[in-house]
């Protein structure tokens, strides 16, 4: 199994799935093209190109050679970021961002507590001041009122 077998296969499957959910879109006719015409043409092209990738996959490196060494780091970043976004509007900017920055610097990056805390709080307050007061672009307030 080569890298491009996997990549091409993913595009073919994705194309087929999108085609499936495109059933209710009217294709129309050439004089009167419908909402589904361009998407269906694009899906067809995507599947064809995906098949081309699979056919030419012999020259690509083996799939197992893809380096996933950075995956743990990526997960440690994306999971807290998702949590922060989930609480962004209810927790408010100040609380959510301070917690996110603290988690990433103290827990993920193992930086000293005495640096991580002032860094997280200070940067969040500065960003809040910059956007809310100077640039006049309001940031979300949480249920606690800040």
């Amino acid at each position, binding site marked *: 199994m080569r890298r491009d077998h996997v990549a091409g296969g993913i595009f073919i499957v994705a194309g087929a799935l999108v085609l499936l*959910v495109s059933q209710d*879109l009217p294709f129309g006719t050439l004089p009167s*093209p419908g909402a589904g015409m361009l998407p269906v043409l694009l899906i067809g092209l995507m599947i064809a190109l995906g098949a081309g990738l699979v056919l030419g996959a012999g020259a690509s490196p083996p799939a197992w050679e893809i380096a996933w060494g950075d995956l743990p780091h990526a997960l440690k970043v994306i999971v807290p970021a998702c949590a922060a976004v989930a609480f962004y509007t209810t927790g408010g900017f100040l609380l959510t961002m301070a917690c996110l920055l603290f988690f990433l610097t103290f827990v993920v990056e193992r930086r000293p507590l005495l640096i991580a805390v002032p860094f997280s709080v200070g940067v969040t307050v500065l960003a809040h001041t910059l956007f809310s007061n100077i640039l006049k672009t309001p940031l979300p307030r949480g249920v606690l009122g800040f």
Partner: protein
Amino acid sequence: MDGILDNLLLGFSVAFRPDILLYAFIGCLVGTLVGMLPGIGPLAGVSILLPATFGLDATKAIIMLAGIYYGSQYGGSTTSILMRIPGEAASVMTCIDGHAMARKGRAGAALAIAAVGSFVAGTFGVIMLTLVAPPLASFALRFGPPEYTALLVLGIIFLAYMSTTSLLRTMLMACTGLLFGCIGIDVMTGHFRYSFDIKELGDGIGIVPVAVGLFGLGEILSTPSKTVAEKISPPKFRELMPTREEWRESAAPIARGSVLGFLVGIVPGSAHIIASFLSYAVEKRISKTPEAFGKGAVAGVAGPESANNAASTGAFVPMLALGLPTGPVIAVLMAALLIHGVPPGPQLVTEHPQVFWGFIASMYVGNLMLLALNLPLVGVFVRVLQIPYAYLYPLIIMFCIIGVYEVNHSIIDVWIMLIMGVLGYLLRKFDFDPAPLVLGLVIAPTFELSLRQSLVMSNGNWTIFFTRPIAGVLLVISGVLLALAAASWLSRKDWRSNLPAEEADKP
């Protein structure tokens, strides 16, 4: 010519206003920092700071954002030369000989040559932009839906032909981007497409969450902090002056890089990256001492640095004259203009002359500011690089979230950014360049509308694309390029194979 001079005077009257100068300066300063910092490229920088321009008028907003873009081309050379880390992809070529010069104790000279080359090329690019964009815009006023359809097809084919990855990969990415662009309400029939009862998706997927996710967050996810070097020693001010011999060796590569970069820049694709690669290849090919390349050749710094700056300026020609984005950064700049109620394209020159000429004039001023910023203050900028990446990337994530949320105050947009971040990470693993995806997303609405309008106005007769002269010529060029690209792909040999192996493998 008189008309251009009069208009340029109007532009300078705008560009020299103190408030405009301030925003141009902020843009250049932030751009320099964005170009220097690994993990945040010009696209992420422009996208993240887009919401900060909402309170400004269109002229200030576009001048500041453009300053970030071309400022980042200057800044990228600093990390390349001092740390062998390209702050952004176009600086990859500068790493090779720039860092070799630094190891020989000529870091100051390399930085000076890069800055002067960038200034000369940037200024040359603006002069050409001044001369080329207005007549091209007048010509583009003759374009109807079939011509726009053909032009956008040509743009995609050019992108595939010039891309640094393969034809199939680029086309797949562009296709995915076009498909993403189909999400939302169909403007001609009112049908909801792929919105899955999420009302926020009715307006479609925004460029900002996609661009910030793919390029900002995606880059952070694939950059563990331990891989980012932190030790650097900036040169002292007195060490910045190149020798007479170094100036002599850099003059011709700067001139060639400026012309080559501008020409490549007006072509859709990752122009500034390609321009720097091509310039390096050209300089090495024509050099009397090709063996010196890779070991600190002055031409290996001067040529690529000039080319990538000229290309960045050249990329504004299709944007300002045709309303056509040549790359993802230009796409975000176009989005910025649209957000401020100024549609880019042929009418920009006539309907918003203050924005158009003020923007062009500000680029002359911006290039001077960057020269003044980048040489004497290199030591100050280098200190910013000493901020540990462990503190820097959480900060970038915070700005990504703020930037995306503030565009529409929509949390769905932020979720889209996170999904795009993961997608960007995975695409890198499978060697896909996400730039064509963003480009596809940007051109999708115009492409679909002009395609369907063409078919409606010709009563379904698709030969309309060939019977109208301009559209026909554009499509014939597309066909020739596609055939050339397909032939290269089938023979497994294309223009990338002319590059030295170590450079061709770089992103």
